[in-house]
């Protein structure tokens, strides 16, 4: 019974601005899916969500919920519920009244409202607080009330705009899993906005990455991680971030300091410039003892030993990356000391190659 949502070239240009905040967004959210919209601040995530909610006009294009074209419907006619970043609880109503408010407006019977509110309160551990006003709740409890207000509605679509950003780190992690589990159980199509790529990776069935109002890639979390469509997605997804750098190409190999790193033939064939953008995740680096033609030297600046894993931060000799430091994942408990000089090579099948002109991924196989 869940409903798909479609953005069809949906565009939003704010009055007084020339560039669209959301530019021709084509996105299909499958029925019952948990889709995460992620991207850096100001990329248009909230705007996209608010267009779907009906809080923001659609300048051009269309939005459909199921079979209905809702592009010009008022928010109240769209059958969606939203959890705001600020929670937006009604301060003058108790927790129970907050949760039952939409039902009361919809004209449900008192008994029905009480039943649904009690159910939701049970699910969210809010039963002891039903008679309190929001100001007498902690941040985490308010967040749950906001969730409760959405779920009692049993809407066709849930929208959430950074609902966890006001919580402390620990609560964020536990609430994250609770929300994801709740959504799976209810099976209601959900669009979730966050700027936190860890949240995106852990919660979403699929993740849509936005930048400057333009959709970069939509894919399942692991696919996004393994096959980023462009250098932006590659650098944005993953923590610590992927190492990215622009290098000269000579005879089908990238020149990294003294090393010559052979590029896949498919990539060099597609390359039109004499430079290439290479990306390699920290775990795609292998430490080599002594000389190897494709190994480059790194001077260790910081070693982070976490017990189960360890990261080296260092500078690349004779070449530079986008970030000032290279990050490499190394075996724990035998980490080279700070100031030492080590050699790394990129595992060939773990290398990402991007066009320096467009940033698009080049075929590696």
């Amino acid at each position, binding site marked *: 019974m869940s409903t798909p949502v479609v953005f069809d070239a949906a565009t939003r240009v704010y009055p007084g601005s020339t560039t669209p905040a959301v530019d021709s967004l084509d996105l299909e959210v499958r029925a019952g899916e948990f889709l995460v919209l992620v991207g850096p601040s100001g990329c248009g995530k909230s705007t996209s969500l608010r267009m779907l909610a009906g809080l923001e006009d659609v300048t051009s294009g269309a939005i459909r919920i199921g079979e209905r074209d809702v592009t010009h419907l008022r928010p109240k006619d769209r059958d969606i519920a939203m959890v705001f970043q600020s929670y937006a609880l009604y*301060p003058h109503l108790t927790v129970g009244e907050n949760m039952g408010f939409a039902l009361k407006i919809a004209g449900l019977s008192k008994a029905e409202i009480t039943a649904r509110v009690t159910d939701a309160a049970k699910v969210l551990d809010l039963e002891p607080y039903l008679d309190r006003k929001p100001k007498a709740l902690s941040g985490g409890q308010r967040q749950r009330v906001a969730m409760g207000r959405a779920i009692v509605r049993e809407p066709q679509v849930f929208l959430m705009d950074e609902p966890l950003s006001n919580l402390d780190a620990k609560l964020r992690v536990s609430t994250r899993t609770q929300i994801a589990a709740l959504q799976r159980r209810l099976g209601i199509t959900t669009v979730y906005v966050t700027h936190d790529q860890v949240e995106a990776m852990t919660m979403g069935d699929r993740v849509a990455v936005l930048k400057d109002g333009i959709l970069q890639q939509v894919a399942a979390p692991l696919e996004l991680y393994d096959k980023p469509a462009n250098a932006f997605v590659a650098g944005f997804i993953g923590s610590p971030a992927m190492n990215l750098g622009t290098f000269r190409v000579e005879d089908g190999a990238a020149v990294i300091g003294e090393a010559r790193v052979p590029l896949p033939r498919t990539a060099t064939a597609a390359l039109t410039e004499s430079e290439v953008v290479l990306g390699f995740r920290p775990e795609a680096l292998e430490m080599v003892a002594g000389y190897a033609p494709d190994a480059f030297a790194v001077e260790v600046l910081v070693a982070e030993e976490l017990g189960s894993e360890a990261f080296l931060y260092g500078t690349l000799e004779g070449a530079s990356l986008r970030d000032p430091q290279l990050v490499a994942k190394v075996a724990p408990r035998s980490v080279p000391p700070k100031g030492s000089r080590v050699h790394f090579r990129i595992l060939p099948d773990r290398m990402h190659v991007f066009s320096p002109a467009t940033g698009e991924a080049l075929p590696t196989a």
Partner: protein
Amino acid sequence: MSRRPRGRDERSLGASVALHATLLTATAIALFPVLWVFLASIKPQNAIQSSKVTLIDHPTLENYRHVLFDTSFPTWFLNSVVVAVFTMVIGMAMSATAGYALSRFNFPGKRGLMWVFLITQMFPVAILIVPIYSIMASLNLIDTKASLVIAYCTVAVPFCTWMLRGYFDTIPRDLDEAAALDGLGPFKTFWYVILPLARPGLAVTAFYTFLTAWGEVAYAIAFILSDKKLTLGAGLQQFVPQFNPQWDLLTAGAVLIMLPASLVFYFAQRHLVAGLTAGGTKG
């Protein structure tokens, strides 16, 4: 000898005495005229005007009996209540809806409207009486309570609209949006969400509109011709003929006039609580 450090809520004895003395003096100065009128109102008529200054002199309620039963005071009082209550209700309804529109919606002429509201407040009543009189005359409203209600609304509504708009602006827009998603249109949002949260602003508006009408004299004298239709401010003038002010009636009347205004203030101030919107949104 070591002294206990002073807590943040404590004062030295000297500071405390000075503070309280100052406050008491200020209170006494502020209250004295009111007290004096009250004391005069319970003196016999001849004692009020005697050159001997006394606080209490043969206290009596005779002045009150006189003003309540032998004059038109009760009629005027009722007229004033009707005019003030209508001004309050109509003025609040108009300024709350206008303030909400100005706070939440964009419409052509919005800036112009705000300027008009601001500028009309700058005209003194003395200048406005004549033009408003001729408008009332052409509408056949002279010598009716409606003329006063309308005139008082022209005074109160622009100010109250500005004030309420400012108050509505402090209510987070997220709440409007949450209400929209919960199925409320603009009118229901206004009624169920905005108004309950604007209680303090509405209380001040109520008090202000009531007072605007309650104590007003100039319009009342100009627009009301028959004695039976006068309001209090205008009626009491009759107790002060040029050569023979009837201080007994005037003081007793003045004390009675204060009662409804105090009552309205009492109910209004109970709504003057801070932090109504606390807890709804964060950040």
